[in-house]
């Protein structure tokens, strides 16, 4: 980003190639609508380009990028009248049962098909998570952010994020129980 700020156009292309998928999927999972995800994704990268001239590395680039994305998503939700849901279903938090999907290395054709179906089920289960839990999951998976970084992006404490992730994992495990 510093190289791009200093006028090196190729640096942005490398940056974009690295982050285009994760950021796009973050919006796609959070909106559930490809058109809105396209618009939000493009808007965030336009902001990144606009802010490049005054960019100072105060945090990891991913943290900075996903903070812009988080703020843009909150704006979008406000405009559309949607409030982020932070629901905690009772009795689901302490489920530590092992989830054991079929391993990809045993890639027999029938196992391959099974994994694809399992992946689709995971996406469906992820879509049913409360917004804040899904966001914590996506920031961890797509952004590769630590608990502290997710907390910084979301504007909440580290323990809150840890709790959200634990609940998210527990709910996903419950939804995929039938695949054990």
């Amino acid at each position, binding site marked *: 980003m510093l190289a*791009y700020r*200093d*006028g*090196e*156009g190729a640096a*942005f*292309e490398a940056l*974009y190639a690295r982050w*285009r*998928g994760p950021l*796009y*999927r973050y919006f*796609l999972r959070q909106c559930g609508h490809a058109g809105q*995800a*396209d618009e939000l*994704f*493009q808007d965030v*990268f*336009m902001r990144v*380009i*606009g802010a*490049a*001239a005054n960019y100072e590395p105060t945090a990891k680039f991913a943290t900075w990028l996903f903070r812009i994305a988080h703020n843009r998503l909150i704006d979008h939700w406000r405009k559309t009248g949607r409030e982020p849901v932070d629901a905690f279903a009772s009795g689901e938090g302490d489920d530590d049962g092992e*989830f*054991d*999907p079929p391993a*990809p290395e045993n890639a027999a054709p029938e196992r391959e098909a099974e*994994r*694809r179906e*399992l*992946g*689709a089920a*995971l*996406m469906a289960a*992820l879509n049913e998570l409360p917004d804040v839990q899904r966001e914590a*999951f996506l920031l*961890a*998976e*797509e952004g*590769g952010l*630590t*608990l502290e970084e997710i907390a910084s992006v979301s504007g909440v404490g580290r323990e809150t994020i*840890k709790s959200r*992730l*634990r609940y*998210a*994992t527990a709910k*996903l*495990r419950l939804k995929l129980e039938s695949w054990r």
Partner: protein
Amino acid sequence: MSDIDSKFSRLYREASTEVPPAAVDAAILAAARRQAAQPRRPARSAWVRWMAPASALATLVVAVSLAFLVEREQPARTDDAVIHRTRPRPESVPAPAAEEPSKAARRALPGAAAKKDAQAPAPAAPAPVIVAPVQAPTPHPAEAAPFAAEAPFAERRAKAVAPRMVAPKPAAEVNAAGDAAAGGTGAAAPAALAGASKLAPLRQQTATRSPEAWLEEISRLKREGREQEAAEQLAEFRKAYPAYALPENILK
């Protein structure tokens, strides 16, 4: 991410492969290239960054300079007051027997040198000297108005050079000076201005007189019809104060 089950994580990455449409990619990359092609202005940003501290520093320097000037000015006024208080009374005051040339030169400077001499105790002198106080005639209000701004300066200057009047003189001359002082400048002037050779004492007077007093003297000579002397005085005045704006009654 240690807080997410690694198996979930692996499964999610396998299933999550969506990417933005090519049109969006193209639009973003084109915007990025346009931005990169724009000329940078690092010099301006550096100036903007330093403008506020530089302004603050300049203000501070000006403020400190003014404070020093004011502080330097104030003791001078105080010392003038000290000179007034410590000025010897007309009766009998011990005067320095002889002045060293350097000391005399210092005394010629108004302000600091005069302060030193005023504060230092006067050395004992063999003969008492009567000090003739310099009396500047009060100018007419109409005449004084144009020079109102210069009046304090002239007053200070007159005070600063006042110690010169304490220079040792022969007793007869001292008495004559005393008489002249007692009678005022107007009484002593006719005798002093009798001829061209008598211009020397006048020149000495120019050093002690304020410009206003001098102009008043010239005006008086004109009123008395002594045009020649008035013209000589005016010429002397112009030499001494070339930048001084002369009042109309003098120029007539």
